[in-house]
């Protein structure tokens, strides 16, 4: 069960973007789990239910904060010319080595900041599916979306994050 504690914390940290909110969300999740046990009817898997509670706790924590006007990550989406070709001559493969090219602590800090800058409609599906590695259908269930919508949002988030990693190692989108 230390496993649940670690998972809930990691999820909350990825969704809220900072340690203090993640700590609050962790405590809140276990409190809610305790209070809402009657709401858990064994229809869903315990882990799915726990993820739903934890996701909501983390999102509430984030909403409780003053919203900073976040710069958009849209600028890191790939750019194309009129003929639909990549507009830059960049070596995109460098972004695939961002973790080797960058200092680990710096990358961790930048990754946290970038996640926080993703619009919520993209961040939550991306965190659950790509970072927490939940199956698409389970993400859809937790978020009340269709599987197709989850995939579409994860794809767009990945494009933005890919471009951002490239930016960190000096590659134009």
């Amino acid at each position: 069960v230390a496993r649940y504690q670690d998972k809930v914390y990691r999820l909350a940290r990825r969704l809220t973007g900072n340690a203090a909110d993640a700590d609050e969300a962790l405590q809140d999740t276990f409190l809610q789990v305790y209070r809402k046990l009657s709401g858990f009817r064994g229809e869903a898997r315990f882990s799915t239910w726990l993820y739903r509670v934890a996701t909501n706790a983390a999102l509430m924590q984030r909403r409780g904060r003053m919203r900073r006007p976040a710069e958009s990550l849209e600028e890191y989406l790939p750019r194309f010319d009129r003929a639909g070709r990549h507009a830059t001559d960049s070596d995109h493969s460098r972004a695939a080595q961002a973790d080797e090219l960058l200092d680990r602590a710096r990358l961790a800090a930048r990754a946290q900041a970038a996640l926080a800058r993703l619009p919520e409609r993209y961040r939550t599906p991306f965190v659950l599916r790509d970072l927490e590695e939940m199956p698409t259908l389970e993400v859809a269930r937790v978020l009340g979306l269709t599987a197709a919508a989850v995939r579409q949002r994860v794809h767009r988030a990945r494009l933005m994050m890919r471009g951002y990693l490239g930016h960190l190692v000096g590659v134009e989108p």
Partner: protein
Amino acid sequence: MTSAMTCRDGVAHLMDYTEGRLAPRLRADVDAHLAGCPRCRGFVASYRETPRILRNATAWEPPAAAARRLRRLVRGLSSRRRGGAEAAAGIGSGHSERRTAMHLLVLPLLLAVAAPGGPRGPLSVGGVTAAPGQAASGWLEVPDGVDPGTRIPVSVIHGAQPGPVLAVVAGTHGYEYTSVVALPRLLSRLDPKRMSGSVLLVHMASPPAFYGRRIYYGPDGKNLNRVYPGRADGTVSERIAHALTREVIDKATHLADLHCGDGNESLRPYSYWMVSGQPDVDAASRELALAFGLDHIVIDRGRPRDPAASAYTANTAILRGKPAITTESGGMGLTDEASVAAQEAGVLSLLAHLKILDAPSVRVQHAVWIDRNEVLRATATGLWRPAVEKMQSVAAGSLIGRVTDPFGAVLQEVRAPFAGEILYVVATPPVSQGEPLGFVGEISREKDPPPVR
């Protein structure tokens, strides 16, 4: 490449393409486009790797304080729960019964957070398992990955009675021998039947660095003591760090990382007390440093505070709420008896301090605390000629040594940034830009022992 398929089209299909969900016809079109478009090939590679890179970069673990808060919360809930269950049993309505049943189902899960451990069973590191009152030695496997793996020699000495679990790590750097020689001696002196608590010995953290006679770096060019908590899909040093974090640090309650001067470093013995901002952990780490018995103790306030980028072995334990120290005794590739015996005696004293052994602990009575300290580094690659020796006192601005080019021209003159003592100095000529040349420490005027801040 079909005329219809552009880079933009390809990118639109990328998720389905990389996950094998595209219809065969469309897939063939994307394949054909990729064959003729190097930019898209690079793009696909980075698109595929993006989740993994971010997953690893954000694999945060709860700080000790958060985990402690949660344990308190769950303990509080469970004591309330016990009262509630009796009341529910008294009322006996269908709803309450269902609620009680659900609580009974899930509360044990929560309680396991509050009371880790449970009944005392065997203790394992990798495949090396010892029952209570027994000892076992064997290998912790680090599988092949992007480069060849290795196997780390470990011993598990599992005391007959419960108590703390001290992890002792030797040979993090390949040319530091005093700890590697001390650990088999220590193993022969430990009797698990007389122990209250357990000891995990890592005899040689990086066998490829040891057998390759490597200074500072493993065969992958990485310093094992800078890559914690490691990663399962990294190079061999990172995979070693990953395995040791999960199999040793996570299973211990306390840790001592034993070092000495590397093959090129002439060093006076000292310990590091790492200050993390967690008052209870820092106070316990300070007591470990005093119990180890080396009278010079460097107060190290500069270590990373992010558990996902803890970098150092001892810091990895500390950021997981486990008191830890790093010790330094010996150097220059030597195995002199005094340096080896200091490591061995230090660990025995730690075991006494933690009450794992029923023996007296040797606590330093008057430690020399070193607060301000600085590693002096080479700004140029060349030949290093030191002008000082270990343990020497130096005045601010006095000459520590010079780096010259191979023809004798001076590239760098290194001077003491403040008055202090030479804790170690590089004593062999080769030096590369950025590498350490020496370590100078200023003796603290604060009271002994210094307070936890």
